[in-house]
């Protein structure tokens, strides 16, 4: 039972349902994104967040709208969890003028300052110091905003992360480093690329660091709440390692996956699925009628379908826009 033993708050059906809905929305969004790719509607490729929903939803559930996040190439989940709108996201993935970036960014560069999303990023590790800069900015402007840097285990290979953590700690910046450890960087298992213990990488800079089950949204939420409160209170940066797993390929085109076993994939999907986890908790601990969840799922699926259809019908940006936005 996910929230047992993590000494979390007493079951709150309302709140849990909302977490469930958010995670489910991300999963459906990604399934639809994959579908759009397979059906040849989406230009380029995209990286799906399926399996990792609890990380983005758990962390963002404790953030304020004016808090910042920096995201990664696998950014749809962060974007939605922080409050982005389905239609403008699909439109961006499809390269339409109605997209969040008027079609100029695409899947890997969705940004939405209205929800505090400073942007997905195509450069592994690239956003870790950008998040520190957002934290410094909040501090200089005298607000109590917090900046969260989401990054994958692969970013542990980038020196930039360490420069960022050093300065964040020196200046007690309100930054939460969220490492989404899904065991692989592209096609390489990370035991081949990471020496030592991940948490020690943060502790070496005297940064509070802890690990949490990234498939348990309640556990993620609780851990994030603690570390974000700390940062907001001026107690400096923290590091949260979320152990998780991407069910699908590195990107939508990675279907064979010779670098890992079907057994491993099945084990994660069947025993540790964040949605199934929470669904069980909802029924077992809050006595929520499964029908409620089924209905919720139905609504979300309709939302997704409508948003995707609307996006498919939207217009591509006219060639005349190519020269816009090079300079402000």
């Amino acid at each position, binding site marked *: 039972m996910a929230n047992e033993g993590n000494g979390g708050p007493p079951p709150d059906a309302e709140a849990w349902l909302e977490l469930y809905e958010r995670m489910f929305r991300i999963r459906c969004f990604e399934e639809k994104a994959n579908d759009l790719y397979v059906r040849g509607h989406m230009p*380029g490729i995209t990286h799906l967040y399926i399996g990792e929903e609890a990380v983005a939803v758990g962390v963002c559930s404790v953030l304020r709208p004016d808090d910042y996040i920096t995201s990664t190439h696998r950014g749809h989940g962060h974007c939605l969890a922080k409050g982005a709108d389905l239609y403008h996201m699909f439109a961006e993935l499809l390269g339409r003028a109605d997209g969040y970036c008027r079609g100029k*960014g695409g899947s*890997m560069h969705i940004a939405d300052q209205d929800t505090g999303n400073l942007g997905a990023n*195509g450069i592994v590790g690239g956003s870790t110091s950008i998040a520190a800069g957002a934290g410094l900015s909040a501090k200089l402007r005298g607000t109590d905003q917090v900046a969260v840097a989401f990054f994958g285990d692969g970013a542990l290979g980038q020196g930039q992360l360490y420069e960022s953590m050093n300065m964040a700690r020196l200046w007690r910046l309100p930054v939460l480093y969220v490492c989404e450890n899904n065991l692989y960087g592209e096609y390489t298992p990370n035991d*081949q690329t990471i020496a030592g213990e991940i948490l020690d990488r943060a502790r070496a800079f005297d940064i509070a660091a802890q690990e949490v089950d990234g498939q348990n949204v309640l556990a993620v939420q609780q851990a994030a709440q603690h570390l974000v409160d700390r940062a907001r209170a001026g107690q400096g940066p923290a590091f949260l390692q979320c152990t998780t797993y991407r069910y699908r390929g590195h990107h939508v085109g990675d279907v064979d996956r010779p670098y890992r076993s079907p057994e491993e994939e099945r084990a994660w999907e069947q025993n540790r699925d964040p949605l199934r986890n929470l669904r069980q908790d909802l029924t077992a601990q809050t006595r929520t009628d499964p029908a409620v969840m089924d209905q919720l799922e139905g609504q979300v699926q309709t939302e997704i379908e409508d948003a995707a259809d609307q996006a498919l019908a939207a217009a591509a940006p006219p060639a005349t826009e190519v020269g816009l936005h090079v300079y402000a």
Partner: protein
Amino acid sequence: MSMRRISFGDAIREAIDEEMARDSQVFMIGEDIGAAGSVFKIFTGLQDTYGPERIIDSPISEAGIAGIGVGAAITGMRPIVDIMFGDFTTMVMDQMVNQAAKTHYMSGGKLTVPMVLRTTMGAGRASAAQHSQSLHAWLSHVPGVKVVAPSTPRDAKGLLKSAIRDDNPVAFFEDKMMYAWPGEVPDTEYLIPLGKGDIKREGQDITIVATSSMVHESLSAAETLASLGIAAEVVDPRTVSPLDTELLIASARKTSRALVVDEGCQQYGVTGEIASVIADGAFYYLDAPVKRMGAMDVPVPFAPSLETVTIPDAAGIVEMAKSLCGKA
């Protein structure tokens, strides 16, 4: 000489395979190049042949592996450092420019850095601004580094073999769009010298200097131009630095008109250097100004409706050539 038809990607792999077979000092290091055979799948099988010690999968540490390349090169090895996307050469500039390029000179000729930096260039895959750049102009600005940008499987193989045997740091740019393109290569071993350009098509009316994939756009433009009674000479420098200035100037003096096409951004890029070299060297022979066609000076947009307009193409080359020849 009997020939075989292979892809550009195969040509790259064959060059590395042959050089690794003949010289135990040669090894390759990069991300996902081993078991995965690179994200472009051009090295499939190579690690089986040479083992993980000579085809090294690295963490996502571009700066670090470039530095490791420099250190290995000055101590007797011939490293090939694979930087997945040319956009990430932004992270190896210090090692390439302050170390690799200057070590031989700063040491008064004592140390040498026989290292090859292989990376990609080229847009056209809806990969957006951080995975589509052609940044070969930067290293071409740096004395001490040689820069190669081949256009055909044959040139790619012969030039890469020469680059690996060269005692200087060589940056080798491969247009990722060309990996699957086929071409003829000799059955028997051959080398193509660095620093020597190649006339890909002869003509008397106008010289079109083109690099990498732009050679193919120029050749198809030349076909169209021929049907319009304009005989275009297509010259491929092959090595961007050192540049085969004699060849370019001689061609322009012969045709009295010149157009320079390269996929890097036009401003302060490759076309500026080549155009100024020709405008100076052929000044008294030119009937029209030397024109340049680089990529549009904008970050590469994601939406295909925008991306396509940023890259020079055959149609645009035809138009420009016609106007230069007074046939517009």
